[in-house]
């Protein structure tokens, strides 16, 4: 008994010794305060549900920060490093903004995510009245960031899709202006998912500050009339149709997020024009501990690190389970991959060095040409493993075509970049699992085959960041409790080409005449899926009718 007591005591003491440093480390970390409360009806860190910010809080914690909640009427603690306000649905009073500004005045950082005014969330409309809070003027004058009014409307949107938040998803991309937050995302063209955004512009270099645009879209326009949204209020007037009206509405390259730093105070701000992009079950959704929208997750991580002023070498690494190969004509990102095909000049037709690799969605190739070429690459694949080339892909800067025994067609979602090297990316839906690379030509000069390449291209264990092309399109998400059949034609009597998991996202290319079947495509698959299994981000009736 005595011995057991001593053992117990030793165990308790050991646990205290082990736990204490961890606890102390947490208490010493930078403080991040989330501004929440009924007064503004914002998202909360304690909410692990759909619209909570617990995932965002976890990102901060993973960077060593402590997280606290405060009310908007509270002063932001002097030792707080970052103040966060996400998705206020009620009036943001000038007094709340004044407290935020006091925090910035002493060199703090702020992350703000605001949805468009009057945006319909199902249960209520956004009523933050941000334009009357004083914040837009302060940000414009001291940080060179312009918070716009309005919502980005894409061509496929309808009044019906605006009535359901789940139907308002779309993609934006990292802006071309280099900045530490989006640099790796820009290199690979990673999309970021949004669910209805307002414009947020960066006004660049200015008095006391420099601002950077982070994300942009050039699809659609900014609708400035808030009356386009429906309302739960029975006394509210009906929603008005949306249409592009000059000069009130804006079109072209539209930014929806920006960062800035004020040199006088040292304050940093990050403004997002959409809140769902960093909410639990939207942009920061995880399945089996893996982010579904990896662009959103990495964006949130890097933004948090920037706000915490961590040295860049301490920023979290890019998730290893994804393929970080950018098609930009720069070869550095290939160095991280132990690829096959360090092919000698003797095997390369056209005298160059080739590397190639595949993941679940794409075939990637890079060529270091030894001499100037006309930058045309020709790939001969052996897809049926009979050691004969049966698939020819010809790629240049303007077009990528594919030739099979059945015919010739253009691949619109293949990508080629010519820079220091020539890089190429081909969707995997043309290549079966064990496809072999037979021959590669560099340039268009006719040359005889000098030998068989016939090399199996290594398939990586990583997955592609996004299987979607970068262009305007109606998107559909497959929603089902089970795997669903992707068929070769619009009907159940057509053979199954593949089975897809719930959550798979496709570009919708067309529909059957009756609208019951939709022709979908992404980098991995192309085929027909029943319409009722799809969650579109716009009208499917507007899709062209496609003969099977």
């Amino acid at each position, binding site marked *: 008994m005595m011995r057991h007591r001593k053992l117990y005591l030793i165990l308790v003491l050991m646990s205290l010794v082990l736990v204490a440093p961890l606890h102390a480390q947490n208490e010493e970390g930078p403080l991040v305060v989330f501004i929440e409360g009924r007064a503004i009806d914002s998202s909360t860190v304690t909410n692990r549900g759909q619209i909570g910010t617990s995932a965002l809080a976890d990102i901060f914690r993973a960077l060593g920060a402590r997280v606290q909640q405060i009310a908007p*009427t509270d*002063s932001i603690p002097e030792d707080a490093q970052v103040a966060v306000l996400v998705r206020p649905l009620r009036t943001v*009073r*000038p*007094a709340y*903004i*004044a*407290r*935020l*500004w*006091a925090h*910035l*005045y*002493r060199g703090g950082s702020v992350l703000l995510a605001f949805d468009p005014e009057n945006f319909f969330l199902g249960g209520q409309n956004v009523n933050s009245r941000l334009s*009357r*809070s*004083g*914040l837009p*003027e*302060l940000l414009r*004058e*001291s940080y060179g960031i312009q918070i716009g009014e309005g919502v980005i409307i894409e061509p496929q949107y309808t009044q019906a899709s605006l009535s359901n938040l789940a139907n308002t998803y779309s993609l934006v991309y990292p802006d071309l202006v280099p900045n530490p937050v989006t640099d790796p995302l820009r290199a690979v063209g990673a999309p970021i998912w949004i669910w209805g955004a307002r414009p947020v512009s960066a006004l660049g270099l200015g*008095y*006391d500050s420099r601002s950077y645009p982070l994300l942009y879209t050039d699809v659609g326009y900014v609708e400035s009339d808030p009356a386009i949204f429906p309302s739960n209020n029975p006394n509210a007037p009906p929603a008005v149709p949306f249409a592009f009206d000059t000069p009130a509405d804006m079109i072209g390259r539209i930014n929806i997020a920006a960062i800035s730093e*004020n040199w*006088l*105070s040292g304050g940093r701000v990050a403004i997002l024009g959409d809140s769902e992009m960093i909410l639990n079950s939207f942009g920061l959704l995880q399945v089996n501990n893996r982010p579904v929208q990896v662009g959103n997750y990495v964006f949130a991580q890097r933004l948090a690190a920037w706000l915490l002023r961590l040295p860049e070498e301490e920023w979290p690494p890019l998730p290893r389970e994804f393929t970080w190969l950018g098609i930009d004509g720069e070869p550095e990102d290939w160095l991280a991959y132990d690829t096959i095909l360090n092919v000698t000049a003797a095997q390369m037709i056209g005298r160059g060095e080739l590397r190639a690799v595949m993941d679940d969605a794409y075939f990637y190739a890079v060529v270091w040409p030894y001499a100037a070429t006309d930058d045309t690459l020709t790939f001969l694949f052996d897809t049926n493993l009979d050691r004969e080339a049966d698939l020819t892909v010809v790629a240049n800067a303007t077009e990528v075509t594919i030739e099979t025994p059945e015919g010739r067609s253009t691949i619109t979602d293949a990508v080629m970049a010519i820079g220091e090297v020539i890089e190429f990316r081909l969707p995997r839906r043309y290549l079966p699992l064990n496809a072999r690379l037979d021959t590669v030509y560099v340039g268009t000069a006719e040359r005889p085959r000098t030998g068989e390449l016939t090399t199996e291209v290594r398939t990586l264990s990583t997955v592609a960041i996004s299987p979607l092309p970068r262009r305007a399109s109606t998107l559909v998400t497959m929603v089902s409790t089970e795997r669903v059949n992707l068929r070769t034609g619009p009907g159940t009597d057509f053979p199954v080409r593949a089975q897809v998991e719930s959550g798979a996202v496709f570009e919708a290319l067309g529909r059957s005449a009756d609208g019951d079947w939709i022709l979908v495509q992404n980098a991995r698959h192309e085929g027909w899926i029943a319409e009722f299994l799809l969650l579109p981000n716009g009208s499917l009736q507007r899709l062209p009718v496609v003969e099977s």
Partner: protein
Amino acid sequence: MIRFRILSLQRFLPVALLALSMIVVSSLRSEPSAQMLLPDLSGKVIYFTEDNNEASLFDRSEYGMSRFAGLLQLAGAQLFPLDWRRDIPPDADMVFIGGAQDNLSNAQVGRLWAYLSNGGRVLFIVDPLAVGVRRGIVGMQFSDENGSTRGLFELTWPDMGIRARDDVVIRPDVGDVAMPSELSVPTIEEQGDLVYFGTDRYETSHPILAGVENELWFFGARSVEFDASIQPFQASPLVFAPEGYYGETAYEEYITGGPLPFYSAEDTNPNTLAIAAASENLATGARIVVVGDREFLTNGAGLQTSPPNTTNFLYPDNVIFGLNIVGWLLEAEPNPEAELTFEPPLPTATPTPFLAPTATPLPDTEATEGEANE
């Protein structure tokens, strides 16, 4: 006998005349010269605001505060206009808002609060609501349609226990005041009969009132509310309205429609009605003084002199009070080498203008109720 008396008068007449002249002169010089040591403001930087229809420190007319600016500079302070397009500079020792008549914008409130809550010092002079040239109320409003406090005072009330009310302090007995008909707006002078007052009711224990011995004069004021309970701040009243004066909240209706009785549910209680108050937040070191009348420091009212443009101040205690406020805000000690002597005012051939409240010419547009910036 009679000859003796005549001889006595002849001998004593010069003496009598001399005595008479002394009596006359002494009656003119009814007060001895007053003195004060200027606060040592050397090296202090004061930013003053100009964007919201304040009394300007550059303005040498009776509506400006150039004399007060000169006094501050004599005391060693450097004065700069504030650019609201940027944050209040870090070298600002104090911000002076000289009676803005237009509401501070929400952005301005944000910048001001950022400065104040981080240990800043602010002298916030607020003018009362007043009837405009055309019917309507002009002036800064600090409460919304629900009666909730807004603007800067929405922040200073919980954090510093001080705020101004939306009222006008008026005398209770108006039986002898000629009220105009409903068809005309009363003149400034007619309003002045209601709202001018001198008061010797002040908090003598506060260092800001050191050296103040006579009446302080105000020319139309609004009341200032303070929370003197035990808090992380110390809020103190400075000056009170004369006994019986109360805060009328329906001033426009009062002045255009005829006298209204005191309405306890809406008007401000006349007991110990503060016109000025000071507060210090013990945690941040922030200090603020709120004064409910701007004319108490303008050239033609509180800092009026007789003869004009001299140092013979009509109300020297207003000068002492104003300089003490700045000295307290900047924690400045009296400078033994800078003494200000107040010569008593002298009569002049032309009467010194005696200005009414809202001395700045009122805007010529319809005043609108509510926050213009919302």
